């Protein structure tokens, strides 16, 4: 199988599969990054990013810590390089803080529930357990 069309482009010779992702960060080591998103040139421009970062941050307040985490993931170059992107940075940092706090709370509750078990909660544990909960409300019969 061969490419019969135009000659192969002379590219930056990125060999690794993750090269497109890390291409941005390799540029970062030379100076301030050009692109605020993790996708590099395929992602958003700086002006669009501000709007998106703000929207992700605000939506995260609807009990969506996963959205906050994605916000941080998406704008990872913003987090890594402190002086650049002064407009986007506050939102991303606050998203990171929010995600950490929320996960800590949720994780501690889930761990307490799982480890404490019946000893801690007595009969309420059985009611709160997911599969009992599902059986009670008939949620498993759909498939």
């Amino acid at each position: 199988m061969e490419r019969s069309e135009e000659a192969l482009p002379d590219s930056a010779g990125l060999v690794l599969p993750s090269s497109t992702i890390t291409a941005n960060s390799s540029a970062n080591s030379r100076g301030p990054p050009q692109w605020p998103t993790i996708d590099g040139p395929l992602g958003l421009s700086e002006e669009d990013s501000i709007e998106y970062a703000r929207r992700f941050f605000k939506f995260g307040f609807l009990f969506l810590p996963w959205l906050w985490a994605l916000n941080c993931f998406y704008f990872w170059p913003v987090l890594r390089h402190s002086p650049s992107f002064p407009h986007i940075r506050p939102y991303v940092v606050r998203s990171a803080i929010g995600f950490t706090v929320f996960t800590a709370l949720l994780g501690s509750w889930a761990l307490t529930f799982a480890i404490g078990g019946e000893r801690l909660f007595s009969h309420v544990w059985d009611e709160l357990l997911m599969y009992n909960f599902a059986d009670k409300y008939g949620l498993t019969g759909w498939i």
Partner: protein
Amino acid sequence: MDQNSRTRRTILESLGEEIIRIITPVSICMFLVVILVSILNTNNDSSSSQSISTIATIAYTEDSSDSTWDKLKGALLNSLVFVAVVTAVTFFLVLLFYFRCTKFLKYYMGFSSFLVLAFTGGEIALLLVQDLSFPVDCVTFLLVLYNFTVVGVLAVFMSKMAIFVTQGYLVVIGMLVAYWFTLLPEWTTWVLLVAMSLYDLAAVLLPGGPLRLLVELAISRDEDIPALVYEARPVNHHDSGGGLTQRSWRRSSGDESANSGSNVGSAHLPSGSCENRAYVEEVGAAGGDSALSAPLIERRIDVQMHLAEDVVPGENLALEGIGLGSSGAIKLGLGDFIFYSVLVGRAAMYDFMTVYACYLAIIAGLGITLMLLAVYQKALPALPVSVMLGVLFYLLTRLLLEAFVVECSINLLMF
């Protein structure tokens, strides 16, 4: 085209990388479905008792006590009904697209992915929790499911989420629908796979085929169809001063106006100027609803309407396609993911030997399809070659290879 002093990439690096970038998610999807099937089906082995009433079993409900001929006839009937529904819905989709109801299509796509993630995903997660006796409470579970679903809908709906996240969610959606399909009775599944690949062949290549009409409509209007299509990350061509427009490759949602081949950057790409399209439409049926999916390989059209799984009556059309995006990145429709995974999942229900054989067959078929795509430069169906090879290998393995291997192992001859 910039001709720098840098050395040219070898054909292995550029071509191989593009192919790897499409084979990896397909493999991951198949792998996840095989895992799901092996975990969830070891407990309920009597699959005949798990008959779900869907549009795919409306004509005949398979019973393990029926004779082979009866099962075959019933399966044929079921598949015929299914393909007929898919065809009808696809034509409806073409009609909608013709009347420029793109907004409606987009919302429908978001809505259907919500249904898949929330209900099918929730169901499967619940089954997993039950089977593994995982002590999770309902608050945590519901919160996590809610998060997962909402972000998934955003990722699929919006074109501006992180590429990795969108790709991940598309693979997850494919996995969930594929697992749902494996719950159909056995004969029905196999005949359905063959029927869908024949339908795909007809719909894309025949002049009157709905998918071909859709593709031509989209080309003539230079628009994107809103669809669930997996688009691989484009390879290389990111020079520092590159003229590649930022979102020229994004085709996963139809809200952009098509920047046809006018991207300067597309000339950089080896396959940049190709307009290959294949659409995959998917139709899934659940509880009276049918989701149509027709596999299509399409380069720049993304259409996806996914049908509600359980509760909502109506039909979702999912158009997927495999093709080359204007940036040269390969696009594969979600229907292809789903049907490949259904094949492998079904093979997993028998034994892992069939899984390996079918996996190799599907990957080989995918490679052949990509080759044909490069040669013919037009819309191509992604299902036929892979599914036919897969079914053939499954039958050969089950009937011939297994006996051979087992006898050899018993007599300590090989393996």
